[in-house]
Structure formats: C-alpha cells, structure tokens
C-alpha cells in the first residue's frame, strides 16, 4: 500500500518542488525552536531531579546562569538543525510544514553545508527575513550557502535495494574500471 496521499488543493499541487515562502518557513522554524526549548527544559528538569534523588538529601531544581542556558540551547539547536538538514533534509518543523532543505541545484544537502547553515540560522534568526524581500524567496542563509527550501509534502517511498540491484551496479562499475584508457 502506498503512503502517498493525494493533494486535493490544486494550487498546493502546482507548488510542490517550488521555493517555499516566508510564512511557512517561519512557522517551521518556530516549531523547531520550541521543540529544542522543550527538550532542553525537560531534559534539564528531569536530569536535575534524577541527580538529587540519587546524590542529594533534598530535591530542588536550581536555575543555571543565563549565559549557560543560552549556550546550551544554541548548541542543541545547531546540532538538531544540522542533523535534520544534513540527513533527511528536514527537521520536525519542516516535516510538519511539508518543506525540505536542498542545495540550490536540487541536490541533497551534505552535513558540512548543513552545519554552516545551522550555525548561521541559530546565531542570527533574522536572516530568514530576507526571504520576504528576495525575488526567489531566499533567506540570507540560502544566499550564503547556496541552499533552497522547497515545498515537498510527500516524499516518495524509500527505494529498497536488493542484492540484484547491488550486483547489477557492481557489474557496471567493473566494466567502467576495466575499460582501457583513452577508449
């Protein structure tokens, strides 16, 4: 059974694979930031309570210095965005909004570029505002690193590789390698 669903809205159907606009991207980023904040706060509170339960006489959640909170949230955000964009091309927020981060030539984003993009976005959120002004809906992070954010509601089913596929591929490789130089 296919996981593909039909897109009923015709305009939405036409825009699949096109550059996404500011509002969708801002909402997706908001969801991501909120998620990271929840994970940080939840993790800190649970960790703090667990520590007190095992190594302290009383249970109390202390408030760490602001600079430490900000630094840890920033690190978490950069790691999360890098992992999302560098692997599946989307984070949870972008998954909800049906968006995908790709290179401007349509190819998959690799981890180094994803890290640089995440670094810039986590450090300076307003870079996204440029998408409102740019003629091609690019934020400053897209201009800087040659990336794009496209509407991609339903990615296709994962391609399943069987041994036959691998053998066929290896055969082609072997033929290419064994070809004489200059032929």
């Amino acid at each position, binding site marked *: 059974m296919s996981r593909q669903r039909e897109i009923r*809205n015709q305009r939405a159907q036409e825009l699949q694979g096109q550059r996404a606009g500011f509002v969708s991207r801002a909402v997706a980023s908001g969801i991501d930031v909120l998620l990271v904040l929840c994970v940080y706060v939840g993790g800190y509170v649970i960790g703090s309570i667990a520590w007190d339960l095992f190594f302290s006489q009383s249970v109390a959640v202390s408030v760490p210095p602001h600079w430490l909170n900000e630094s840890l949230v920033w690190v978490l955000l950069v790691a999360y965005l890098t992992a999302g964009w560098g692997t599946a091309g989307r984070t949870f927020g972008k998954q909800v909004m049906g968006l995908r981060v790709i290179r401007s030539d349509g190819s998959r984003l690799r981890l180094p570029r994803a890290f640089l993009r995440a670094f810039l976005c986590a450090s300076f959120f307003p870079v996204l505002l440029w998408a409102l002004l740019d003629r091609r809906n690019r934020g400053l992070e897209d201009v800087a690193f040659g990336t794009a954010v496209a509407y991609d509601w339903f*990615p296709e089913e994962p391609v399943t590789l069987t041994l036959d596929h691998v053998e066929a591929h290896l055969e082609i490789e072997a033929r290419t390698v064994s070809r004489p130089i200059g032929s």
Partner: protein
Amino acid sequence: MAGTAKVGVSASVLVAGEIASRSVQVARVVLPTGMGEGVFETIERQVKGREQEARRSEQQGLGDVASAAESVLNRVVVEIVDMLDMEQLIDHVPIDRVVARVDLPAVIDAIDLSGVVREATTGLSGESVDGLRSGLMGMDTWSARVVDKILRRKQPRDLSIHTTGTPSMGTGAMEMLP
C-alpha cells in the same frame, strides 16, 4: 386459487391421457393386426399433444401456487410477529449464551478493525495537516505579493529550482535489504 385449479385440471388431463394411451395399447393387442391402425395413431398423437399441454400448464400452475403460498406465509408471519410482545420475547432469549457462542476475536480479525481505525485516523490527521499547509502556503503567496507591491515589482517571483545535481526531491531515504 386459480393456480391450484389449474394444477387440478392438468392432473386430470394427464390421468385421462394415460388411460387413453393404455386403452389403445390393449386394443392393439386384442384386435387383429392392421385393423384400425390409422385411428390408433391419430388417438395417440392427440393424447401426446394434450399431455404436453397439460404438463406445461401444470408447471405454470405449480409456480403460481408456490408464489401464492409464499405471499400467504409472509403475511401470516408478519401478523404473528406483530402480535408478539417483543419485550417479553427478549427477556426470554438467553442473549448471554448466544454472545458466548460468538467467536469475537475471529469476527474482529475478519473485520480488520485495526486497519479501519488506522485508515480513519491517518485520513483525518492527514487532511488537517494538509489544510494547515495549504493555509500557510496561501499566506506565503500573499505576503510575497504585498512586499512586491510595496517594492513596485512588475515581474512575479521566480520560485523554480533549476536542478542540475543529483535530485533529492522526493527520493526519500535508501535502505538495504539482506
């Protein structure tokens, strides 16, 4: 009633035909050979024709009688059911024993309840997410149009992605099977 009468008449005709046929056979044995042969053949032909007609009529009559009986039976059953006190009847039916006999897991397996629930929830959540995405997509277009109007741009925005590298859109992840 007409159907019943038809069946009765047909049966009488068949009996009469049988008697006539036997009489002809007896007459053939008793009378000298060749005597009255033409008459016997004519009688036999007539009797056969009548018999066939009677059989057809009998079949039709039987069909009519069956449908009439069914109609009467239905009416009688409906009348009897109307006369019954359903509340009392239900009180006397051992529903627990009936339910105990039903193989519920088998029934649920046959229905594929989990599949039905999965389809329904997927459909509902999917449609609401699609609605949200479509709404925000509309706001994307609207906000871009407003900005373009303020900046007095005449050309619409170029939203296409010129693919030259390995396509990543809609390819999904690859997984290996042993």
